[in-house]
C-alpha cells in the first residue's frame, strides 16, 4: 500500500519540464475532446470519410498501433525466454508500451464508430458477438485478451518489486508463454481483418499478415529505442547500450523482410497487370489523373529505404545519432505505408469503380492527435507510478 501511495505521489513530482510537457499534452487532449464532442453530436460527417472510402485516418492509426503493441514480444522473448539481462531490465517498459498501445487502439476504434454507446453489442454473453464469422469480432477478443495479459504481467512484476522480491518465474512463465502467441495473433487477426475482404483486391492477398508482422517488428522496436533513450535521459534509470543495440538488430532484420515483402507485392500486381491491381496503380502512380496518395507512398518508400541502408552499416547503426535518425525515418515510413498506404487505397477505386480521393481533414487530425496525446500521458503516468518500485528493485539488484 505504501508503494502505491509513493507511486501516486511520484506522479505529481517532477521538473518544470515535466509539468510543461504534461500541460501541453493535456492541452492537446482538451482540444481533441472538444472536437470529438462536436463529432459525436453531428456525426462522422465531420470527417473526410464517405461511403466510397468508409475507413480513414482513425483506422489507419489503429492498424499502426496494433503493430506497436505486438512488438512488445520483441523484448519479452529475449528477456524471459533467453534471460538476456540488459533487456530483462527494461522488459517492463515494453509491456507498458503494449498496454498503452492497445488502449490507444481501442480509443481509435471508439472515435471511429457511429454508435459508440452500443459497443457492448460486440461483446460475448451480454452482446451478440459474431463468432466465428467476423474477423473484427476475433480482433475484439484478441486485443482485449492481450491487454489483460500484459496488465497482469505488469501488475504482478510491480507487486513483487514493491515487496522487494524478484518475480517468480514459475508464476510469470505461463503469462509469458501465452503473451507471445497473443502478440503475433493480434497483428495477424488485424491483418486478416483486411485480407479476408474479397471485395477489395488490394487487401485480399496472403502477404498482408506477414507484412504486418514484419512492419510491426521494425516500427514498434524502433519506437522503443527512442522512448528508452528518453527515459534514460530524463531519469536516473539505467538502460544499457547493449539492450538498445540488440533491439536495433531486430529492427534491421524486420525492416529488410518488410521491404522484401513490399517488393513481392509490387512485382505481382504490376507484372500481371490485371484489373485487381488498380489500387496499387492508384497508390504508386495515380489513376485517371488522381494522384493524392502518390507523394505520400514515395516518401514512405524513400524513408524506409534510407533507414534500411543506414542500418546496414554497423558504424551508423552503433552510433546513437544515426541510429535515432534511422529509427525516426522508419517509424514515419511504416506509419504512412500502413495507414494511408494500405487502408485508404484499398477503397480506391471503390467497389463500383468510383474514385473518391480521401485525405484526413482537420477534425480527424485533431482527434487523432488527442488519442496520441492521451497515449503519451498514459505512458508517462504509468512510468511515473512504477518508477519508485522499479528504482528500488534496480538498486537492490546492483
Amino acid at each position, binding site marked *: 500500500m505504501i508503494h502505491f501511495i509513493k507511486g501516486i505521489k511520484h506522479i505529481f513530482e517532477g521538473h518544470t519540464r515535466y509539468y510543461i510537457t504534461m500541460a501541453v499534452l493535456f492541452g492537446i487532449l482538451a482540444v481533441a475532446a472538444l472536437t470529438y464532442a462536436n463529432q459525436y453530436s453531428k456525426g462522422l460527417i465531420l470527417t473526410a470519410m464517405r461511403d466510397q472510402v*468508409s475507413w480513414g485516418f482513425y483506422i489507419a492509426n489503429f492498424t499502426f498501433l496494433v503493430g506497436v503493441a505486438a512488438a512488445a514480444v520483441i523484448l519479452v522473448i529475449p528477456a524471459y525466454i533467453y534471460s538476456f539481462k540488459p533487456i530483462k531490465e527494461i522488459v517492463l517498459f515494453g509491456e507498458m508500451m503494449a498496454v498503452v498501445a492497445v488502449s490507444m487502439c481501442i480509443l481509435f476504434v471508439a472515435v471511429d464508430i*457511429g454508435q459508440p454507446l452500443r459497443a457492448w453489442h460486440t461483446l460475448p454473453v451480454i452482446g*451478440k458477438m459474431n463468432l466465428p*464469422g467476423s474477423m473484427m469480432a476475433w480482433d475484439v477478443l484478441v486485443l482485449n485478451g492481450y491487454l489483460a495479459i500484459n496488465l497482469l504481467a505488469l501488475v504482478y512484476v510491480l507487486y513483487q518489486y514493491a515487496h522487494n522480491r524478484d518475480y517468480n518465474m514459475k508464476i510469470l512463465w505461463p503469462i509469458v508463454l501465452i503473451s507471445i502467441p497473443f502478440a503475433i495473433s493480434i497483428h495477424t487477426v488485424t491483418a486478416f481483418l483486411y485480407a479476408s475482404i474479397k471485395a477489395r483486391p488490394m487487401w485480399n492477398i496472403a502477404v498482408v499478415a506477414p507484412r504486418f508482422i514484419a512492419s510491426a517488428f521494425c516500427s514498434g522496436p524502433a519506437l522503443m529505442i527512442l522512448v528508452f533513450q528518453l527515459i534514460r535521459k530524463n531519469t536516473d534509470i539505467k538502460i544499457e547500450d547493449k539492450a538498445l543495440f540488440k533491439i536495433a538488430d531486430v529492427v534491421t532484420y524486420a525492416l529488410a523482410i518488410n521491404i522484401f515483402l513490399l517488393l513481392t507485392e509490387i512485382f505481382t500486381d504490376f507484372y500481371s497487370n490485371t484489373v485487381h491491381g488498380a489500387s496499387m496503380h492508384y497508390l504508386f502512380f495515380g489513376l485517371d489523373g488522381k494522384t493524392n496518395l502518390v507523394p505520400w507512398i514515395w516518401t514512405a518508400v524513400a524513408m524506409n529505404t534510407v533507414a534500411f541502408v543506414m542500418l546496414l552499416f554497423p558504424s551508423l547503426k552503433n552510433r546513437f545519432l544515426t541510429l535515432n535518425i534511422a529509427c525516426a525515418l522508419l517509424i514515419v515510413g511504416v506509419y504512412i505505408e500502413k495507414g494511408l498506404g494500405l487502408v485508404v487505397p484499398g477503397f480506391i477505386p471503390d467497389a463500383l469503380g468510383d474514385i473518391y480521393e480521401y485525405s484526413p481533414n482537420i477534425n480527424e487530425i485533431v482527434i487523432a492527435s488527442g488519442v496520441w496525446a492521451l497515449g503519451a500521458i498514459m505512458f508517462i503516468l504509468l512510468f511515473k507510478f512504477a518508477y519508485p518500485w522499479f528504482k528500488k528493485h534496480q538498486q537492490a539488484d546492483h
Partner: protein
Amino acid sequence: MNKKNKSGEKKIDRRTFLKGAAIGAAAVALPLDKADAFWESFLQKHFTELSEADIAKVLKRLENEYSQEYKKPVSVNATKPQENVIYGYGLDIARCIGCRRCVHACVTENNQSRDPEIQWITVLKMKKGEKLYDLEKSDRYYNPDLVPEPGYFYMPVQCQQCADPPCVKACPATATWKEKDGIVVVDYNWCIGCRYCMAACPYGARHFNWAKPNIPVEELNANTHYLGNRPRYKGVVEKCTFCIQRSRNGRYPACVEACPVGARKFGNLLDPNSEIRYCIENYRVFRLKEELNTKPQFYYFFGVGNRRKP
C-alpha cells in the same frame, strides 16, 4: 440550402407555431418518458432474441418516437417472411435507359436521407462494345439532357441480396443478417456503425448515415417496417431490402413499379411460374462479380432478342 430553410421558417403561421409549441411543451413536460425511452432503446436486446411481446413494445415505442418527430402518425410493423418464398430480382440491361426513376422512387419509398443524400441504387453508365461490363470505366455521375445516350448502356446496381453475403459474415455484432426469404436486413438499433460491412460489400450496396438523416416531414413514408424503411439513426448502416415493407405484403418493390421500360423483374425464386424464374430460364443471365462466390439473388440479363431457343 440553409438560407432557404431559414427564410422559410420566418413565414411559419401562428397556427403551426402554436402546434409546434404544444408538441415542444409536451416533450419538455415528459422528460421521464424520454429518459425511459433512451434506456429502453439502449438496453434493447438483439431483434432475433426479442419475444413477440417485446417486439410489440419496441414497435410501439418507435411509433411514438417517429410520430412525435415527424408530427404525423407513423406505423412500424415487423411483418414476418412468407413461407416458401425466396425473393429474386432480374434486371434487363437491354431495356434500361438510365433515367434513374428507380433511384428516386427508392429514396421516397424507403425514407432515405435527402441531405446528406443517400441512394440505395447506383446507376452506372458504360460504354458499349468493350467488355461485358467494366466497372472501372463506368460513370455514376452522368447528367445529360436526354437518356439513353447513344453508344452507352446502363447498369443499375443495388444490394444483390447474396445467398452468401460477405457483409453478414463481417459484422462483429450480428447486427445484419439474412432473413428466411433471402432479404439481408440491418437492425438500426443494434448496428454499432463500424462500417466493416461496407468494406466487405463487393457491390457498394451499403450506405452509412454520416449525419442525422434528414427527411422532409411531408415526404416521410409513414408506412414502415422495423427492418426496412423506418427512419434511421445517425451513425448506422442501411441498405436495400427489396422494399421489405411492400414485398412481404405481396407488392412489388418501388423500383420495379417505377421503371418506365419494364427493365426490372421481381418474384419468388421458389415459384416455377414466377416472372423471375421465367427470366432465369429463358434468357442468358449473369450475376455481378460471380468470381467472388457471393451468389447474388439478383440476375442481370439482356432481354431484347436474346431469348434462348426452346
